[in-house]
């Protein structure tokens, strides 16, 4: 199998493509493949050159933490739940493009937290929520902050003004559980999501937690009127 990786060395600026030959079990995930490649005696590219080991981030290895988000054959996905059997004879790996690249497939997603902090995304005063919201809240609270929804979004540029689907879902979580009517979160929603979303809903296609962003939006929009 041909493996192409868009790489970046931690000490250098530019990115470059590197090709590898890989043969491993088809039921391996991309994460299992990366680990397999990295812990051979040498890591050798398809030109036969010794190259630095591939950096990528992981923690849970079972789609619960979001660390290993990357772009696999052009689609933003988690490496730990994307299997070689579904990828064909060539696999292309790229780091998420909407975040600063640290090295190889490792990106700095701390901008996500900064935006949530700057918009005071927390429950000011907790109130038990209406019965019907429980299931939706449970799913929304599973957001991994992996950034896949931001990667795929045509409107998200880097989080300067538009904060993307994960922000809309956090707004929903906060709004439906706040004791006082929280105007500020509605305002932030409007400013950093509502006014910028062109409704492609690609975010929902790639979300590993299947969060129904559309219904979070509907509830936030209804609330504002």
């Amino acid at each position, binding site marked *: 199998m041909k493996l192409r990786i868009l790489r970046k060395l931690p000490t250098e600026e530019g990115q470059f493509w590197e090709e590898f030959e890989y043969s491993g079990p088809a039921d391996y995930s991309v994460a299992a493949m990366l680990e397999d490649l990295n*812990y051979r005696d040498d890591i050798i590219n398809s030109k036969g050159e010794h190259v630095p080991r591939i950096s990528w981030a992981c923690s*849970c290895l079972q789609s619960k*933490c979001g660390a290993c988000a990357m772009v696999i054959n052009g689609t933003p996905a988690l490496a730990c739940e994307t299997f070689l059997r579904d990828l064909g004879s060539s696999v292309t790996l790229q780091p998420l493009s909407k975040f600063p690249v*640290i090295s190889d497939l490792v990106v700095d997603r701390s901008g996500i937290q900064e935006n949530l902090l700057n918009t005071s995304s927390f429950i000011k005063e*907790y109130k038990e929520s209406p019965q019907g919201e*429980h299931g939706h809240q449970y799913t929304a609270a599973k*957001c991994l902050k992996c950034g896949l929804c931001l990667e795929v979004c045509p409107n998200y540029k880097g989080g300067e003004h538009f904060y993307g689907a994960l922000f809309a879902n956090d707004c929903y979580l906060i709004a439906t*559980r706040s004791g006082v009517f929280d105007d500020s979160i509605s305002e932030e929603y409007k400013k950093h999501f509502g006014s910028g979303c062109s409704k492609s809903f690609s975010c929902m296609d790639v979300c590993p937690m299947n969060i129904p962003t559309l219904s979070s939006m509907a509830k936030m929009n209804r609330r504002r009127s």
Partner: protein
Amino acid sequence: MSEVKGMKKILIIGSGISGMTAAISCAQKGMHAIMVSPFMSERAQSVMAEGGINAALDNMGEGDSVEKHIEDTLKGGNMLAGELAVRDLCEKAPEIIRWLENLGTVFSLKADGRIDQRAFGGQSCRRTCYCGASTGKQIVTALIMEARRYEAMGLIERRIWNDFHSGLIRDGRCYGALIYNEASGQLEPVYADAVIMATGGQNALFGKTTGSTQCDGYAAGRLFMQGAMLKNLEFIQYHPTTLETGQKKMLVSEAARGEGGRLYYEEDGRRVYFMEDMYGEKGNLMPRDVVSRCMYDTKRQVYLDMTMLGEKIDSKIPEIRDVCLKYGGIDIHKESVPVSPSVHFFMGGFAVDAGHMTNIEGLYAVGECASRYHGANRLGGNSLLAAVYSGMTAAEAIYAKSDSAVSESSGIETASGEKPDFSEYFKEYIEEERGKFFGLFGSESKFPVMYLRDMAAETMNRDLGIVRDEEQLQNGIADLDYYIDLAEHIRYDRSVLPYFNYSVGAILVLAKATLICARERRESRGAHYRSDYPETSEDMRAATLISYDDGEFNVSLDREGRFER
């Protein structure tokens, strides 16, 4: 109000449930918390906890009580945990659930709107509160939002892309930690009035486990080498039901059996429900150590059958359904799942007192890296409880210490109330460590440091399994001695994160300490089973303590209950 003069500064290593709870509790008391971790909290191992969190709320109307929770926890731990410690934990549990609920944790509810409680192993009543099958994740989400409130106030400061290197410790007191900053590539000292370790269990000792790759035990190993006492390392919980896959051992939560799932093996074309045969109706829900050992004893492939749960699969345990389908290609509605025990939780860790302080003044430990409540075996649902409880308790203990404790115990003369300047105090140590650190880069070696970790893990899995004996343990110790010696002489491929290269030595030392603790406990108790000493010995009903002094490992039994108060 970022840093007010005189405000206590607390350094927290780790940002999972126990670390965040500690940070929030510090901030609530007006202390300044710096939370250091390689990644953001969403990546913490805490998000993987599925099953639940115990509290005697008696929402199920079965007559549950705090006393029963205490009794079950002590009994589940084979009477090795301190009764006072367990009492503190269980008494606080209902309040902890209310606190989490008020932060917005999305608990699963009963029809009457109260929190639902499920059955878990070793419990006399349905006591485990849960959030579907993602309890840890739901709690993490709530804590992240709550921590953000204090971040906005400047009371909690997060530093990611930072890794623990070592403690800044002198004369039995901790003044902060040396931190490897991945962005600057430097070792940087962070001084603090107290340091709280919240680094999770030592998974890396065993290679692939059910847990996160981020929890490697390095911090515990390093601080052990710097004088911190560790406790009960030999008690390692095997989760009975994990599914083997290419990348890891996937946990199949105890909730599967709590809801009615049954374990069996096949013999002559029929199913043998061995747990029920041995222990009756509640057999599948015996404590984890018992179930794992029984599975080991069958010497056969064991299966978990959940097909009889029908619709309950989709309503109560959808995450289990998804994991088995995605990673094992198994539809649990129709098929049984082949399961085997895997390392899951470490009952042992830093020895801590009632305020979660180690034997080193100013150094605290919380969550899984601390050892206090679980004795020889932890009950499901008690670790999330202990994570939250210990985070709160450490913060309270630090707050209660007199403000001048730092300068008093340091023995440094200071101008009126000013804290001493520690940069001079640790200058030599820091320079030496920086020298060693940069020494790691002077190599063209392609040797992957992971090989050494993998070899040690192989030893640990072989010689420190579910059933142990003196000879095996002795072999393991000899292997580790060899690896420790190697680690001091080999240079590694520098194209991996420097953290992996500087951490390997202390991880190996911790592995050796664990084997020594297991060798010295010549009895069987809870998760520690010795085929050469199969009986429980009343004489050994005390925690194992181990300390390190320049290559010497000193083991003793804590008969005086030194860490019980």
